[in-house]
């Protein structure tokens, strides 16, 4: 597989997609929407700025006001456009509104935005490492591989969240904090053995909470294994306009929405991005 460009250009402006499915998956909600106005080839790891067509706003503290960034979890060309899937958990006013979408509702979106994952030279070189909601972009990456990845390692808080593991057809290994599904412990515990004696062309693809990404970064750096990390930071615009989403890298502050969200781990001293809480 040769190096594909990592950014698919977005149409200018916000457009509406129609929600075609909205299903619960344990603690998560999986929203499917038919995007008739965008490209059909977003790169896994790219994201969209989302808002509901109706009633955005009016939640806790009179929010949400701005759009919210979401990696697409899956993208499937369909008659009429591209069916995009977003995996999310209602953790605040914006995700609550999105989680409340029903079939037929309008989902407003801008995108695809940012830079996605660099495809591996061969599927088996790819080690997918996801934590919590961070599994979303890895789904898209797994789908894009022409074969099974070398490993799919997923970490969750507990069973309600581990339900998202069912979305992966690549036989994921799962770890949960409480041991209710898979191994008890952290996803990085699962990763460590995979890094031992890895060929030079292996590459880790990781997305998850800052602490997990930082552990992955440190492990990979120690093992001399390449890693691409999909980071998060608070975003207002998603297209480089506000300079708000910056994260510190070895080259200084960069706009994560423009030069990320996927970064090569060696660009970072730390993946603990300020303000990217949860």
């Amino acid at each position, binding site marked *: 597989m040769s190096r594909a460009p990592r950014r698919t250009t977005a149409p200018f402006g*916000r457009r509406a997609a129609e929600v075609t499915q909205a299903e619960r998956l344990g603690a998560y909600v999986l929203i499917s929407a038919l995007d008739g106005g965008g490209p059909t080839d977003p790169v896994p790891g790219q994201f969209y700025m989302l808002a509901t067509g109706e009633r955005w706003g009016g939640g806790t503290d009179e929010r949400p*006001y*701005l759009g919210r960034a979401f990696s697409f979890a899956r993208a499937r060309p369909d008659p009429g456009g591209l069916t995009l899937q977003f995996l999310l958990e209602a953790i605040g006013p914006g995700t609550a509104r999105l989680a409340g979408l029903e079939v037929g509702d309008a989902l407003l979106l801008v995108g695809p935005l940012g830079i996605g994952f660099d495809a591996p030279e061969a599927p088996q070189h790819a080690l997918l490492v996801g934590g919590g909601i961070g599994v979303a972009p890895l789904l898209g990456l797994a789908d894009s591989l022409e074969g099974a990845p070398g490993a799919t390692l997923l970490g969750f808080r507990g069973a309600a969240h581990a339900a998202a593991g069912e979305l992966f057809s690549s036989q994921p290994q799962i770890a949960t904090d409480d041991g209710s599904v898979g191994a008890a412990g952290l996803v990085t515990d699962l990763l460590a053995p995979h890094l031992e004696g890895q060929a030079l062309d292996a590459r880790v693809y990781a997305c998850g909470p800052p602490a997990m990404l930082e552990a992955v970064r440190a492990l990979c750096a120690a093992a001399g294994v390449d890693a691409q990390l999909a980071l998060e930071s608070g975003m207002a615009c998603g*297209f*480089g*306009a*506000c300079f708000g989403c*910056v994260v510190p890298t070895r080259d200084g502050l960069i706009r994560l929405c*423009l030069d990320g969200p996927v970064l090569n781990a060696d660009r970072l001293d730390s993946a603990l991005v*300020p303000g990217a809480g949860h």
Partner: protein
Amino acid sequence: MDGSVDLCGVELGGPILNGSGTFDAIAARRVFGAALDREFPFDAFVSKTITLEPRAGNPPPRLWETAAGMLNSIGLPNRGLAGFLESDLPQLASLPVPLIVSVMGFSAREVAELVGAVSERAEVSLIELNVSCPNVETGLVMGADPTETAALLDVVRPLAGKPLIVKLSPNASAPEDVARAAEAHGADAVSLINTLKGTALAPGRNRPWLGGQGGGLSGPAVRPVALAQVAAVSAAIELPVIGMGGITSGAHAADFLSAGARCIAIGTESFRDPAAAGRVRADLAAIIRKEREEI
């Protein structure tokens, strides 16, 4: 819009600008490709504020969502004058609309140097003086009171080969007094409002959320304040006024125009929809058409 607008001798296709620092046309070209130029939504483009030396800006986090608005503490990251002239200006010059360059200095001498250098470039139609950014401490001084503004313009005006827009600070007891001083000392236009000083605490942590500690408030939340200041300033001076602050619809734009603004600018709303200004322009045109029919 059928009617073009004269802004200090520069003819614009319509009255809609962007707020400085709320749209990066160079980044937008990377994201939206050729569509950006084809569907460019503004009638003139205002650059992000530049300074003499390069600046990294404030440490993150830089954003906080508020009730119907947002706080930012961006802190004016930019390549500095030399970097801007070399890397950014050629790219901005190829936009399909006139270019306004926003500058800010930490002393009258610095502003003069910026204005002098930018004036020499034919690609630039107008210069905006940002004397009101609440994120950089010394930025407030020059726009905070009439005497400071007058003193600044006395130094800068003679060196400016382009029309000068003074962007007023909304964090002032009487912005109309500052506007009068700007007019009396040679400004060609004024723009307002910049962001209102505001802050937010990190949830449950008892310390400011923003890396820059304080930030600037923008978006619909500030629109009534912006409209009042635009009306007061428009009534106080003869210069053209560029009004902004929380505009999200054609009806809001019409309100600012009827409060006395010559042009209006879209800021935060572009974050929600990059093409928002295009929608505002179309809606405004429809409102104006309807008003004309009713007369």
